């Protein structure tokens, strides 16, 4: 992987304990006939960390999770949980808890029986089972719901039962497959906060799969971004957002604009890790992604929406553009501009302006767009 040793250290809630491996994927592959769903993924996850696999649908993230859970075999490579190779171990013997997207609660069992299921198959005596299940239910905020059936609960409550069931037997590893996907937005944000709080209280490793970048940002110590069966990039949310290392990470995860450079002038004198480029009518010095070689002749720019602003339309700084549309979003205004490029290729940029009482510019307005280089990263074209 392209781990930058400086930035990939996870935030460790149990920093005083020596670093311990939670999950290790070693060149894991999954092929379905001709189709390669997961293509040689290697990943080391520290015990106690919260790692999110983020990717668009079809990127192989769910396949990866199902292999870790044991519902699917690996075509190649191996999966280690703790210090044990579990590639050929059935799901029940892997010491994992799993939260399903549709919760998969047992509809014929009461809440307490659902939560106690994992303890029952581990042959806990009935009294202790109930005691532990009640503890866990209290932890997720569902004390007193013991005898309800799943269908008598709301979506958010079912979600909590599913979580309680997965953590009741204190598995080393907790897997979550888009667990918040079925909830409405407000509840999703609140549950994400609770998941994070619970993670701080529990001593386990979490592997969380989602296609929602906000969830990934809120929850994760580290995020692995998947694309076409491979991990495109992995790092702390802050690093991936502020310094994306590929155009895909920049646009899919950061939501940044991607613009080609008109010319790459080589490394800036005196500063390592930067590069001088010509883009949007400006010669600027920007940070260089580790993936971009120092003597690259071509590059793209990852430009966050708030790294762009308007200059005096009558002046000659920046690039001329025409406002295509503008969306008022409360705290900000997103302005989409068609930029006039030298070769005439269409290029649309999103510019985030401060919102509040500001009035969005009307479509068709002629503007000039300038870029603030501090927030921009040069990535491979």
């Amino acid at each position: 992987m392209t781990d930058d040793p400086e930035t990939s250290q996870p935030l460790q809630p149990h920093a005083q304990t020596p670093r311990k491996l939670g999950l290790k994927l070693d060149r894991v592959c999954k092929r379905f006939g001709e189709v390669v769903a997961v293509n040689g993924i290697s990943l080391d996850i520290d015990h106690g960390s919260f790692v999110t696999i983020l990717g668009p649908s079809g990127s192989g993230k769910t396949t990866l999770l199902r292999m870790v859970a044991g519902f699917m075999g690996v075509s190649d490579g191996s999966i280690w949980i703790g210090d044990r190779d579990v590639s050929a171990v059935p799901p029940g013997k892997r010491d994992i808890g799993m939260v399903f997207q549709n919760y998969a609660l047992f509809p014929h069992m009461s809440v307490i029986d659902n939560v106690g299921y994992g303890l029952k198959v581990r042959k806990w005596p009935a009294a202790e089972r109930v005691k532990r299940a009640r503890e866990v239910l209290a932890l997720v905020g569902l004390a007193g719901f013991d005898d309800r059936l799943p269908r008598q609960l709301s979506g958010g409550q079912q979600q909590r039962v599913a979580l309680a069931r997965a953590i009741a037997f204190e598995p080393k590893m907790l897997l979550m497959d888009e667990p918040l996907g079925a909830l409405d937005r407000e509840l999703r944000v609140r549950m994400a906060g609770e998941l994070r709080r619970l993670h701080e209280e529990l001593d386990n490793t979490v592997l969380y799969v989602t296609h929602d970048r906000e969830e990934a940002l809120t929850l994760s110590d580290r995020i692995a971004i998947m694309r076409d069966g491979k991990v495109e990039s992995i790092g702390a949310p802050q690093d991936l957002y502020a310094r994306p290392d590929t155009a895909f990470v920049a646009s899919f995860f950061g939501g940044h604009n991607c613009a080609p450079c008109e010319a790459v002038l080589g490394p800036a004198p005196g500063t390592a890790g930067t590069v001088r480029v010509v883009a949007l009518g400006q010669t600027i010095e920007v940070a260089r992604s580790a993936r971009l070689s120092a003597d690259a002749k071509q590059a793209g720019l990852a430009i966050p929406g708030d790294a762009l602003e308007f200059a005096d339309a009558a002046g000659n700084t920046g690039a001329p553009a025409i406002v295509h549309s503008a969306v008022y979003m409360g705290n900000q205004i997103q302005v989409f501009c068609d930029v006039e490029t030298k070769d005439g290729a269409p290029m649309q940029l999103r510019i985030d302006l401060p919102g509040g009482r500001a009035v969005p510019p009307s479509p068709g307005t002629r503007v000039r767009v300038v870029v603030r280089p501090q927030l921009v990263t040069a990535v491979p074209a």
Partner: protein
Amino acid sequence: MTASVTMPVPASRAPRDLSQSWSAERGPLIGLALAAPLIVLVVVMLLYPLGKLISIAFDDGDGFGSITAFFSSAAHIRTMRLTFVDSAIVTLVCVTVGSVVAWALHTTASRLTKAVLWASIILPFLMGSVIKLYALVVLLERHGVINRALMGIGITDSPTRLLYNQFAVVLGLTYHMLPFAVLPLLAGFQTISPDLVKAAESLGASRAYALFSTVLPLSLPSMLATGTIVYIICLGFYLTPEVLGGPTTPFSSSLIAQDVFQFYDLKSASVSALVLLVGSLVVVLLAYALVGRERLARAVAA
């Protein structure tokens, strides 16, 4: 000039005729008329013959004398026992095998597996009973395919008796009834998410325990309902026991046919038919009591 006070009415709009007006709910008479053909069919083909059956069975006024006479005959008892026991075995096999097939159909991702399973259910379903029976005779007879294969491999020296016994009857009935079991079972299984089994497995259960603790309780009502359907159809079978079982393993239908066509003893036939009918009714009531309303409601909610 009172006419000038009324609102002008367009000439094309006729005064409202209530008998022509449309109503969302039809009256009870229309419902009855629509159901009439079925009602006539039930009365003529079912209720009248049933009444006749009862009157023939009890016509000489000795109350339950004909019933006690029926149960005092060892042949009758044996036939009834064979009918009910063999049908029970067939039901058990059909529900068990049918559940496996239906669950496989429900969960498999392979289109080939699905196609093969569907073909194996639908093809026998569409074939005529006589063809199916003949096929089984060809397989099972003294010098049939199976016996020749067994002797060819050297497992047996002389032909094994596979036809004209209880085994042949159970096999034939199972073959015939399996599609009738798979289809309702599949409908029941389709309300159960395969993720439940995965969830149970991830919580530490073995595959067997996962199925036993989730799918079995959730599908029990549909299994019982399916078993009831299969059992009741089996009780009334005539052709399969006649052809595959021969005279040594008569089903009660054969008994009734014998009484009617060979001995012209309509009374005895009627009594046999009534015993069979009451037996079937008991099974239905028992199943209803076992499944229960709450269970059915849960199965639907799942």
